């Protein structure tokens, strides 16, 4: 009746679900049993006079008070499970989720970006911070019994802790148009070591991509595109078009020919040499970009003639 249980939270939800299920069965059998019993036991016979019973206070109190107590109990039980699911523990691994008709994009803590299928470490609190680029979507992982809308104008959160290794289905549970039902993904829980390896190697398709293609992914994933253009237009930072090999002038009056070493330095410690005409506004990326993507960035900048 219920999908596989991927977390402790799922087990708690299921306990309540099953308790409610039996509560339902009990009351249904009671009501249906009485109704059907009446239909047979008090079948119409002509000339029978029925008793004139207008009410019975004791009986009415019983059937008002007992259900009220029961549902208040259910309320607290459900609320407890809800509260324990709705705030992510402080030490959670944070994954950013972007929903867009009809795709999920994940940005991992190291800044790498994946579509649709990701891996997470097992037995770890994982928090998803989500936003939408267009209409409402909803992040639903049935095995974890978690679900939360993804909104275009704010960040919402969902978290869980996968107890077992396995691949868990992710579905969109808020109607979003034509391919709503095809907007799914998968979250694979693996041992932490395997997860680390997957992070370094990136998704399988990276293995076959050219460095400059990886660089382009990194250019968007790490937000370089918010300050640097690739078509020559001036932005918060200088354009990357024609950057490689050019002689750069700095605000302290010195110059350098742009080579790989300079690019590496500019990314890791941008404040060391500030290009003349620009402010020292670039955040330092030292240690934040995966080696593979770092190589890719350099190759990408080189390719922009």
């Amino acid at each position: 009746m219920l999908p596989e249980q991927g977390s402790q939270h799922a087990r708690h939800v299921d306990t309540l679900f099953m308790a409610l299920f039996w509560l339902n069965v009990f009351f249904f059998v009671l009501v249906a049993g009485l109704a059907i019993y009446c239909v047979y036991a008090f079948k119409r016979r002509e000339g029978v006079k029925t008793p004139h019973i207008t009410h019975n206070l004791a009986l009415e109190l019983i059937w008002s008070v007992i259900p009220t107590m029961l549902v208040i109990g259910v309320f607290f039980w459900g609320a407890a499970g809800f509260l324990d699911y709705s705030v992510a523990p402080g030490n959670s691994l944070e994954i950013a989720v972007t929903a867009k008709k009809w795709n999920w994009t994940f940005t991992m803590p190291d800044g790498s970006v994946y579509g649709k299928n990701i891996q997470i470490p097992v037995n770890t609190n994982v928090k998803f911070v989500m936003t939408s680029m267009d209409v409402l979507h909803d992040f639903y992982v049935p095995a974890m019994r978690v679900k939360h809308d993804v909104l275009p104008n704010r960040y919402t959160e969902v978290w869980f802790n996968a107890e077992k290794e396995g691949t868990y289905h992710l579905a969109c549970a808020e109607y979003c148009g034509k391919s709503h039902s095809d907007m799914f993904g998968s979250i694979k829980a693996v041992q932490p070591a395997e997860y680390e390896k997957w992070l370094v190697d990136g998704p399988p398709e990276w293995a076959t991509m050219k460095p400059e293609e990886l660089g382009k992914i990194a250019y968007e994933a790490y937000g370089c595109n918010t300050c640097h253009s690739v078509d020559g237009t001036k932005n918060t930072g200088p354009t990357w078009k024609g950057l490689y090999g050019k002689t750069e002038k700095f605000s302290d009056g010195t110059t350098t020919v742009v080579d790989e070493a300079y690019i590496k330095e500019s990314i890791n410690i941008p404040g060391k040499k500030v290009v003349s005409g620009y402010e020292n506004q670039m955040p330092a990326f030292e240690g934040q970009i995966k080696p593979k993507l770092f190589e890719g960035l350099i190759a990408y900048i080189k390719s922009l003639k």
Partner: protein
Amino acid sequence: MADILTSPHAGADVHHGKEIDYIEAKKGIWSWMSTVDHKRLGLMYFWAVVANFIVGGIFALLVRITLLTGNHGDNYFINAETYNRFFTLHGIVMVFLVIIPSVPAALGNFVLPLMLGAKDVAFPRMNLASFWIYIVGWTMAITAICLGMVDTGWTFYTPYSSTTNGPVSLMALAAFTLGFSSIFTGINFIATVHKLRAPGMGWFDMPLFVWSIYSTSLIQVLATPVVGITLVLLTIERAWGIGVFDASKGGDPVLFQHFFWFYSHPAVYIMILPGMAIISEIIPTFSAKTMFGYKAVAYSSVAIALIGFLVWGHHMFPSGQSQLASLVFSFLTFLVAIPSGIKVFNWLATMWRGNIAMDTPMVWAVSFLLLFTIGGLTGIFLGSLSTDIHLHDTYFVVAHFHYVMMGGTITAFLGGVHYWWPKMFGRMYNEGPAKIAAYLYFIGFNVLFLSQFVMGSNGMPRRYYNYLPEFQPWHIASTVGSWIIAAGLFLALGNLLASLRKPKDAPDNPWKGTTLEWQTQSPPIEHNFHDQPVLHRAPYDYRTPVSVDREIH
């Protein structure tokens, strides 16, 4: 004709030499179009509701046929976009054109003034206006369907609805217009109940039907304006790009949901209270026993109507509303469940030691009891926060609201139609097929929707065109159920229509009811009663025997 004589009631006392009734009183199409007679308006609403139910039902069957498979490929004859339009139109037609007007506007219009011993509703012309506004709204909705249909779901959630193509604005304005029809009817009924009760009829001498319809009217008048203005804001946003709900224009999509459910939750009580209204009539009549806990049932209706305004947020637990709000809404939701539960127990207690005749209306009423109980009980899963998070927007919800809206209201409506049919048309229908239809419906219903509970708790989201293969057996079962229920419904309709070809053979009080509508001719004369009737017996008072003839003339 022959079989009608074998029915327990018909042969007994067929009134001969009836007076001119309201149907014969005037002739010609114009006499119908311009009528201010509540009975004729009720009848016109009735046929409109039946026609719309068929349209909405066809969309439902198409949705179910599509879902026979969960992997459609690119060339399936119903594509994803068409599928989305089908479930949207099914929802819109069923909610705005069928269920909201079904009991109040169709049966309520016909029965309410009769039950009060009144000549008509308080504002007969307004009643006519309300009908024509309904027709205008209906025309707008049908135009929108013809112009290429709408794919927003009946909930019109933003920003999808502010950005998708199609005549969404026209459809929203259609719903807006239909709202006015419903407000007019509500105002009319409130005034009628306050002002036109027969001499001697105090508030607690009113039939419970009247109490429920009165509560429904209160909600209609108080809540409908909110959805009206919401839909207008949506239209403005679409037309002029003014950001109200669309985040990319600075609006807030969650605000739309609050507005929408502020109406639409009370609206589910607009839908269910009238169903309860009918059941509270049928059960005492066919048990020939007084209503147990009359006051509890009467107060429950009003309590449901009022607390029902405070629980809308239970549709939004995973939406991003504040946690505190979710806690409060969950708590209040449980409280509003109690009065509904109390009613079920009161109906059972009424049947207890009764003298129960399982005629067709009672078969429908017992079906109602069973189906509505399932609908109500499964609501506990959805009111409880942690389980709702898992079940929200899955087939579990689809099954739940069908058990309440269809298993509750539509079942009661069909019971009511079979109950008052002799009064409305002056004919008894054939009991055999009528009962077979009711049983088919009951079986089909459970096959159709029980399977959806299983899928839903297993995590099958709703509004899905494609789905995982593991769900297919349940989807197939559900679709087969939809055919069984369709067969039952067509049989019921055909059987009722067939009765219209017979001469008027219904006695004035075929079921030995105690309320005033049975104290006039079947069908009633144009002015309902010859003189102002005076309450001669409290409703559901079976201490003295009731006959199939009327007791007051």
